[in-house]
């Protein structure tokens, strides 16, 4: 039976990439190409295969978005920042030499963009700051169910204090903390991403936690 409907359309759309990949792997392990790794996709994208790059986007877009969201704490900004990171990666793909993994290379681009964004934001604070904090506030530990006005006020206060405390951290401490606490990356991954020693990341993380603990002591 031949596939039909959206599945067939999706298959047809991916056909050129699959054909190209299939031709290249005759002598290689076929199981790898059922679900090609990032490196294979990067190599195909470097040869000009747009679909290979779009596959990379599909794989990493959600994580990229959530990292950007952790820095920006705003949906629109997070979307723009993560898209900008993909564009930058696309434009510089020829310079990617594979010394680090695509994952590390790409998330380094993203984190640098996020840090630049925070620096710009500090220089030119917008008046939408409070508005952003008041709605959309949903600390992850809280169940998503109707809350009393008192609870909503408290959630707003917590979120505001958290935002201020995170914003007050030095850039490298904030980066280490977000990547560990929010994204669950290992110290080793964070060190590779920040191009620093693992010991340095541990120090940044400890200092960030100490500073946040002091700022948020009321809510503990």
């Amino acid at each position, binding site marked *: 039976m031949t596939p039909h409907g959206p599945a067939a359309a999706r298959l047809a759309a991916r056909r050129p990439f699959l054909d190209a990949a299939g031709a290249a792997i005759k002598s290689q392990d076929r199981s790898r190409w059922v679900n090609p790794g990032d490196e294979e996709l990067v190599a195909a994208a470097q040869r000009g295969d*747009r679909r290979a*790059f*779009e596959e990379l*986007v599909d794989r990493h*877009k*959600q994580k990229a*978005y*959530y990292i950007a*969201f*952790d820095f920006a*704490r705003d*949906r629109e900004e*997070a*979307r723009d920042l993560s*898209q900008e990171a*993909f*564009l930058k990666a*696309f*434009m510089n793909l020829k310079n990617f030499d594979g010394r680090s993994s695509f994952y590390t290379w790409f998330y380094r681009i993203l984190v640098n963009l996020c840090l630049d964004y925070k620096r710009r934001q500090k220089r030119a604070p917008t008046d939408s700051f409070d508005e952003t904090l008041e709605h*959309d*506030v*949903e*600390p*992850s*530990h809280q169940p998503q169910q109707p809350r009393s006005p008192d609870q909503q006020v408290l959630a707003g206060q*917590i*979120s505001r204090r*958290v935002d201020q*405390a*995170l914003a007050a951290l030095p850039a490298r401490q904030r980066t280490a*903390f977000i990547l*560990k*606490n*929010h994204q669950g990356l*290992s*110290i080793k991954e964070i060190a590779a991403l920040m191009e620093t020693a693992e010991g340095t990341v*541990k*120090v940044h*993380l*400890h200092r960030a*936690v*100490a500073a*946040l*603990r*002091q700022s*948020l*002591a*009321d*809510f*503990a």
Partner: protein
Amino acid sequence: MADHEKSARPCKEREEDLVLFHYGELADGERRAIDGHLTSCAGCAAYLTELAALLPLTVKADKPPENFWRDYNRELRRKLDAAGEKRSWGELVAAFFRPRLLPAWGAAAVVTLALALTFGHKFWPSNDPPKEETALIEALPVAENLEFFKTMDVLDNLDLLESMGNPSDAI
């Protein structure tokens, strides 16, 4: 109650390890050492409990709706199209300036310049004015001098008139 009274006080020298313990980043031996310490240190145990309560507060959850991701893909594809176009032009220009092609482009430029200087005057329009215009240009200073001499004539006539007005001055 003051903040410092509410906060748990861990052993200073173990604070960093406790943070790493919280995140599961300690090696087996170090983790066992902290586990053993926690049984006898209320301050460090309370500190860990506090971290477990506090740190999740800093995470803001976001779950964009399904159409957000559809729009995300569409918008990114459009941006990639624009970037691809820009890049292909850039690559075309960059191809002209590849290091290994530079000597060839330099030699071609020198030859073109030499040919242009040698044979160019036959093909390029001359900047010299036509002959009639040359004659006119040469005559122009003469004409200006003529005007000057005419003025001199008027002055001569004035002298004559003055001398006629004063007969004593007449020679």
